[in-house]
């Protein structure tokens, strides 16, 4: 389990430790199954080519789930992700590193933290820029 993070210790400008993901084709298959998504661009390379894609694509919602994981792991078990936005800017492919990065924008006295977050591919292109709002506990509070 990730360690608990406290609002008291967070400073604006601080960077989050990056999270690297690399999806196998089998993982894409499992994600299609878990979301009951039969869209062929995620498992049928020949079909994906007919839509102009050089390979099958990593699902936007899988990248979004990773973005949530990245922020929730940073926040720790008693932190809570209360808002998450993401924009789908570019295609993500399997068997390639996808790196999630982030930076603290603001920290409020009530423990609300605003983050700038984004996903890059292995060429450094930003595929999914976004933002998150996290509610962190303060030291000496909570269960």
């Amino acid at each position: 389990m990730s360690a608990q993070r406290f609002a008291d210790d967070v400073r604006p400008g601080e960077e989050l430790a990056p999270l690297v993901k690399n999806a196998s084709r089998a993982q894409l298959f499992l994600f299609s199954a878990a979301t009951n998504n039969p869209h062929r661009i995620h498992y049928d390379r020949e079909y994906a080519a007919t839509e102009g894609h050089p390979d099958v694509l990593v699902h936007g919602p899988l990248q979004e789930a990773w973005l949530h994981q990245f922020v929730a792991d940073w926040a720790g078990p008693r932190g809570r992700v209360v808002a998450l936005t993401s924009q789908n800017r570019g295609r993500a492919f399997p068997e390639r590193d996808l790196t999630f990065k982030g930076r603290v924008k603001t920290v409020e006295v009530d423990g609300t933290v605003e983050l700038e977050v984004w996903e890059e591919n292995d060429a450094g292109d930003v595929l999914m820029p976004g933002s998150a709002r996290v509610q962190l506990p303060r030291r000496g509070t909570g269960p």
Partner: protein
Amino acid sequence: MAGAGSLGADRRCNRGIAMVENESLITDEARALVGEVLSEPLSAMITAKEAQRFAYAAGDLNPLYFDVEAARAAGYETTLVPPTFLAWALAPFRPVDQLRGDGLYRGDGRRVNLRVKRVMFGGEEWDFLVPVLAGDIITSTTRLKDLEEKAGSSGSFVLQTTETTFTNQRGEIVARARGKSIAR
């Protein structure tokens, strides 16, 4: 389609009418749907098992999704549902003869007819208001929030926004998802 209203349905291709120059991509019929509910409310109990199937598939082994003791230590009654799974948890299963050539199901909600060829997932904005626990019964309703025609570098396109509201068995709004899709 509900969860899928904000995600899957938007990503489906609208096989549109042939384009006429200077004609708006947004039909009057589509414009009349702004603010309207796109599909009947969907409701289902989300089990720990299906929540965990999603978490495993995403490679997210957060103990709050898997371990009741870890969830209790963090102040929850039982394990949590990965929040973005809400978009998928309520979508109904359908017969395979309803699949289209691209593999997607034919939509059964109200269609937003635009004069476009293709709809792409543009992004999403989530508000997670109340934690969703395994065993919660969640109901979702999707509305067409906005249609906006824009000029892009490769021609004009429509930015379509749907908003799905998720409510639990106590009537609390647990989440809102505003899905953006780009139709061109």
